[in-house]
């Protein structure tokens, strides 16, 4: 999403770094680049202006010029300013007692309201609530069907009145229905409307009056251009907005809309939509986002993602295994866990210092499938102790998995590297562990994986002499 912006900032600061000494003009020049980058990212002109002015002021006040690491100081200022611009963040949804808590969703056509309703319902349900969705989009053909299908997918009931033309009535009845059926959260899905369409803006205002929602969320497409400001402003004028939800953040949009909409309305960004699946709704974190912009990676998200996949017990078991040395079976189990976290590319993007490198790199997720095939072609004994695999076994495994003997030795080599690293890491603190994981990933991205892809040989080592081979075998027989 913000990668391109990250690159630009990277360029600017690299150039400054090359110069050694920094002058006031250099700072101004860097900020001009920042300005263009932000404009290309669709940040609103007025917001850009305010942002660069503020950074300039702070940069001069902090005497960036005289510090030892001016680029770092400047990055920090830009970073802090970005955080401030997008924050403060409050991803909580305040529930009322007695319920139901009524949430009204509004937005332009095609911003992703209906899908977001489903995602939000799923999220709310996972927090122990019992949501109900109300199909109040009576404009678009089959919008009710869509919400019902989504409701079925997430297991949330949908209240709809087919044939009814008045969304105000449907919403009012929906809330009553929730009370009757003991649902404690009601999500109202309304029709998409243009902020300049007075008639429809009146209508949603009436819905608001009739249902007295506790939360009103505006759904905005993260790819929106300068117009995001107008949309956000007008909706904010007509409705009492409580928060913003930005959608389609899994695209390569630079997401300037997020910056501007927050600035203009002063309302917090609550969630961001990051994928087509109904789980893909994340809490918004300004600091993480700013970190991402500046290429600092997003370790926190990575850790959270990992936490969702690995439960504590498993982690403990894993810890023990790591210390005692893992087998290829464990390795495979880990790979499968990683696969369920998302594509390799997505995961790697979250690692500090990786985001800019990932772009040029074609990471093939099928590589993991090949690894799996290779491991499955091994005997249990070989999986426990891959050192026993010599040329003949290697040929057999390659044949069984439909790969090349070279691939087999490649896999074994990566595995031994990982295993050895794990052994070291199991004795480290959490922070050190993350750091070396990042280092390893960098190594992997630059070295092992692309090499594997080309199918070229992994082992650049010289061949063992007969004596060495004998010794190695002897060692493992013991």
């Amino acid at each position: 999403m913000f990668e391109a912006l990250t690159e630009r900032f990277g360029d600017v600061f690299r150039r400054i770094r090359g110069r050694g000494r920094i002058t006031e003009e250099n700072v101004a020049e860097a900020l001009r680049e920042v300005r263009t980058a932000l404009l290309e990212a669709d940040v609103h002109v007025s917001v850009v202006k305010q942002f660069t002015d503020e950074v300039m002021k702070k940069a001069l006040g902090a005497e960036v010029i005289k510090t030892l690491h001016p680029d770092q100081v400047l990055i920090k200022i830009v970073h802090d300013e970005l955080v401030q611009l997008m924050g403060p963040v409050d991803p909580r949804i305040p529930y009322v007692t007695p319920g139901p808590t009524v949430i009204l969703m509004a937005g332009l056509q095609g911003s992703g309201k209906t899908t977001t309703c489903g995602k939000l319902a799923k999220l709310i349900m996972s927090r122990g609530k019992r949501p109900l969705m109300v199909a109040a989009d009576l404009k678009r053909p089959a919008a009710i069907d869509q919400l019902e299908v989504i409701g079925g997918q997430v297991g949330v009931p949908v209240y709809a009145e087919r044939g009814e033309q008045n969304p105000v009535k449907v919403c009012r009845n929906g809330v009553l229905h929730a009370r009757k059926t003991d649902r404690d959260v009601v999500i109202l899905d309304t029709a998409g409307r243009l902020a300049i369409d007075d008639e429809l803006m009146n209508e949603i205002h009436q819905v608001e009056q009739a249902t007295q929602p506790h939360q009103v969320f505006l759904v905005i497409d993260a790819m929106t251009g300068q117009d995001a400001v107008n949309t956000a402003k007008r909706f904010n004028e007509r409705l009492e907005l409580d928060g913003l939800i930005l959608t389609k953040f899994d695209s390569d949009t630079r997401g300037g809309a997020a910056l501007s909409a927050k600035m203009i309305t002063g309302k917090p960004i609550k969630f961001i939509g990051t994928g087509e699946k109904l789980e893909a709704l994340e809490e918004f974190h300004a600091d993480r986002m700013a970190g991402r912009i500046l290429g600092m990676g997003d370790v926190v998200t990575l850790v959270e993602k990992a936490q969702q996949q690995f439960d504590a017990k498993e982690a403990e078991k894993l810890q023990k295994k790591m210390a005692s040395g893992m087998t290829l079976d464990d390795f495979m189990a880990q790979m499968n866990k990683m696969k369920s976290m998302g594509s390799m590319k997505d995961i790697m993007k979250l690692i500090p210092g990786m985001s800019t490198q990932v772009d040029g790199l074609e990471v093939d997720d099928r590589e993991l499938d090949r690894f799996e095939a290779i491991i499955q072609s091994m005997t249990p004994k070989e999986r426990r102790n891959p050192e026993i695999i010599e040329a003949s076994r290697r040929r057999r495994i390659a044949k069984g998995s439909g790969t090349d003997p070279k691939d087999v030795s490649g896999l074994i080599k990566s595995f031994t590297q990982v295993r050895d690293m794990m052994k070291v890491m199991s004795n480290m603190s959490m922070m050190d562990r993350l750091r070396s994981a990042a280092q390893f990933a960098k190594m992997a991205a630059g070295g092992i994986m692309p090499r594997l892809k080309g199918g070229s040989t992994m082992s650049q080592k010289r061949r063992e002499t007969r004596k060495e081979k004998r010794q190695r075998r002897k060692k493992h027989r013991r």
Partner: protein
Amino acid sequence: MGLFDRFVKGLAKTRDKIARSFRSVLPFGKKIDDAVIDQLEETMLMDDMGPGTTTRLIAEVRTAYKSGEISETQEIIPFLKRRIVSYWPESDRKLIMAPSGPTVILVVGINGSGKTTSVAKLCHYLHQQGKQVILGACDTFRAAAVAQLTEWSNRLGVQIVKHQQGADPGAVAYDACDAAVARNADYLILDTAGRLHTQEHLMRELNKIQRVVEKKIPGAPHEVLLVLDATIGQNAVNQAKMFGQHVKVTGLFLAKLDGSAKGGIVIGIHDQIQVPVKFVGLGETPADIEPFDPESFVEALFSEAA
């Protein structure tokens, strides 16, 4: 209502905004100076023309000023109008027709850009001209997308080829091609699922649909229309580029132009991508479609508020 009137009406908001901002930026009968140009630049940026295009246009204004071609503020807008219209070459903005048999139109775009509504508009437009149109519901992914298109086909009175949700869109395209040939249709319009241009596998799926169609009907799809939401920002350029890499995009359908208070993105898009805008969507009913005409577009964009 004539074509121009409809355009003017649909663009009323855009024109209001631009005419107003340009007028306020450019006081009448003043010499051009740096302050005026700065102001002009800011306005163009706000209209989503993008930093690249804006810089270029501003440079042209400066050059024209230095060469004495223009000297006063009120000359800037007519100058820009001439420049912008000249950006659109005489590329054919008419729909490409099959020499014989059905003309296949593949409609693609990101989620929520307005594909299905645009398909309905296109269908209405061709149907009005007495053409026989068949719709193919290749959006088998989004919940109720097939139902949405079916509803349109009922309202418009045209035939539709569809499968179940979750079916292979390539298979739908296959059957739709068969039906179009067998029933001797003039046009086959294929609606596809919205997909982000960054999703490699979904882009490959799109390419597969194109290949299926190619195999069934030689020369097809004759037209691949990329639907772009007019409120979108600079990312529209990326979209057009990425879609172009996977399918042969032959034209743009600029949807929701009635909502965008700017419309300047068209200038940015056309400045960077050599694909003509073929249609614009100007409202919510199927009749709200117009062939894109740069003359009227720019005219409406810059004309005084009525």
